[in-house]
């Protein structure tokens, strides 16, 4: 069976991204129209739109396995692409697709299950001799057990959700007195987020770099890596900026870590695209963290430095095609940086700022790629994530990529909601970012100010406020106010009241 029509079980920029490659491969796509976003941009890229706007269930359709299978069957889609998030790492969904003779564009349910369960994944890595941060052998039952393990491996430790990901259900504990509270929070959070309260404990590595390897494997047993990405710029375990390659790796370390990443993937007979995440400490020791069995948000930086379309590879592999290249064919060329432009208020601690995008102007330049699912008039709705666009910039080396990124950031105009743009404008000017010495603790520890404004910007804003004040309250630029009748009244209020008569 060959893929002819793909149901995109997702929305936003990743839906647009998948459809773009599908069109290039002459494959039709089906998009699901929801009541929350009936005018979303991704719908305009699809060949077939399934109208699900009548569905008012509280669970988004993209999380509803039975419904998605029914939609695929109804629209005669013979494949499903899950994108990222939602059901992308749900083994049951992958199995359900297979049961209904629908091709799941992703790894096998078995690989998703094994890597999705952190406790099993750790056991697999341990058996393969992959370096790991020491920790509990399996899940821990209660805070007393956690304290015993923590004293053995030494504080600080991190409590992690067994079925977790994306930073939820994670708590750092620095001393035994904190354990009870943190254990309860982590376990509760894990249950709410993943429907599984089980947690485990491991050594917490202070100030590491986040390095991950892109893996590609076919169904014939060929597994290669496409180099690394560095995603150390993160806040509460949410990535904000990613780059490829990483300035922390040399060719030797890249080869060593890449080999380990491939070895982990081989242990679960992995096929499709996947990512093996490591922490790298200041002495260049690395530790296996987890494997993500899906396409990642930050996949474009790898595409840029390798010239390989990862969505195309996923589709080819799902069609049982053999990989066209071997490890020695993979050459990393240039440097790529991705900024996640989210509807968040940087000045209010990155609080989500949903709203309607009034206007959106992105730079068009050969060194810039923009992946987005919104256009002017679109809304960033509170029920989904806050992403507006991914600004992906390349250069021949890191220095040039940063320079181009700085230029591109000034050309992005988004009106209607506050965005993370001021954060990136600050970041690209920061010494520690420029010299590459930043770690995952960068935002928490090295920053006093989360945004950039040049010397005169506040003064210009003050000038504008004055201009408005003059216009609203003082009919003339030179004003006379009679204070006889309103001693306790502010002049503008007085003026307003007089004008109302």
């Amino acid at each position, binding site marked *: 069976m060959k893929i002819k029509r793909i149901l995109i079980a997702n929305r936003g920029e990743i839906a647009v991204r998948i459809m773009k490659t599908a069109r290039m491969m002459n494959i039709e796509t089906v998009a699901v129209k929801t009541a929350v976003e009936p005018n979303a941009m991704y719908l305009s890229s699809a060949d077939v739109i399934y109208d699900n706007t009548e569905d008012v269930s509280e669970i988004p359709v993209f999380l509803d396995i039975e419904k998605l299978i029914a939609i695929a069957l109804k629209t005669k889609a013979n494949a499903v692409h899950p994108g990222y998030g939602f059901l992308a790492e749900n083994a049951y969904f992958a199995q359900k697709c297979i049961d209904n003779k629908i091709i799941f564009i992703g790894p096998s349910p078995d690989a998703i299950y094994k890597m999705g369960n952190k406790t099993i994944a750790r056991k697999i890595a341990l058996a393969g001799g992959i370096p790991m941060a020491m920790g509990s052998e399996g899940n821990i039952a209660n805070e007393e057990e956690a304290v015993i393990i923590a004293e053995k491996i030494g504080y600080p430790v991190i409590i992690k959700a067994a079925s977790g990901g994306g930073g939820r259900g994670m708590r750092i504990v620095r001393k035994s007195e904190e354990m009870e509270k943190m254990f309860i929070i982590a376990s509760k959070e894990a249950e709410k987020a993943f429907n599984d309260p089980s947690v485990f404990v491991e050594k917490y590595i202070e100030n590491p770099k986040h390095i991950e390897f892109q893996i590609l494997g076919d169904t014939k047993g060929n597994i290669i890596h496409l180099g690394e990405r560095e995603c150390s710029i993160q806040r*509460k375990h949410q990535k904000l900026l990613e780059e490829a390659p990483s300035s922390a790796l040399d060719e030797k370390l890249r080869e060593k870590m890449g080999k380990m990443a491939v070895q982990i993937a081989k242990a679960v007979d992995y096929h499709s695209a996947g990512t093996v995440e490591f922490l790298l400490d200041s002495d260049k020791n690395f530790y296996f963290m987890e494997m993500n069995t899906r396409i990642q948000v930050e996949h474009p930086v790898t595409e840029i430095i390798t010239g390989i379309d990862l969505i195309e590879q996923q589709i080819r592999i799902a069609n049982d095609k053999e990989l066209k290249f071997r490890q020695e064919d993979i050459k990393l060329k240039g440097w790529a940086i991705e900024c996640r432009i989210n509807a968040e208020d940087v000045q209010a601690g990155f*609080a989500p700022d949903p709203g309607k995008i009034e206007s959106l102007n992105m730079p068009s330049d050969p060194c810039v790629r923009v992946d987005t699912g919104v256009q002017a008039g679109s809304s960033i709705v509170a029920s989904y994530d806050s992403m507006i666009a991914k600004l992906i910039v390349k250069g021949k080396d890191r220095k040039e990529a940063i320079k181009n990124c700085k230029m591109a950031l000034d050309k992005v105009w988004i009106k209607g909601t506050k965005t993370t743009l001021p954060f990136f404008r600050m970041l690209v000017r920061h010494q520690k970012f420029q010299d590459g010495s930043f770690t995952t603790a960068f935002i928490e520890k090295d920053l006093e100010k989360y945004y950039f404004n040049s010397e005169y910007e506040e003064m210009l804003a003050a000038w504008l406020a004055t201009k408005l004040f003059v216009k609203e309250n003082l009919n003339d630029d*030179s004003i006379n106010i009679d204070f006889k009748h309103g001693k306790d009244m502010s002049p503008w209020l007085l003026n307003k009241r007089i004008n109302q008569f």
Partner: protein
Amino acid sequence: MANDKLQIKKLYVLSSENRKFSFSLPLKQTIRIGKRDYEVKLKADEKYGTYILWKNRKYPVEIVSSRQNRYEILFNDISYTFTVETPFSLQRMKVLNSKRGKVEKEYIKAPMPGKIIDVLVREGSNVLQGEPVVILSAMKMQNEILSSVNGVIVKVSARANTNVMKDDLLIEIKVG
């Protein structure tokens, strides 16, 4: 007393971070930096909306709110809150400020709309600055709402598993 009329020659702009700017009236279309005057223009067009043109660069601007003399301006994606004061109102404000006592209660409000996942404190319990008091889930993120002060919880309005709007009162703390 023949002439009670006073002429305003200057306006003062105070930022929420206590920075002060002043502009002479009538308001000029130029701003002096060092010895040079630079032209500043407020413009609007279809593609970019409202913007300020300054030293050959366009900066997006928006007026988020204006209430009496209080303005929130979004300038190049950063918001600034100002109050515009006349020389008289500035003088009066100084007098009022010197009379005002210290803030005794701190109100922790929801920084964004979302769902309360957990309330970590009880009425009567002590909190330290920086300690999480509420866990709020919004847009797929769990956010710890931290206490901004040391004090005693006097009222807990937040309830687990309920939805809140931005600026809803969550916790009341007696400072000290």
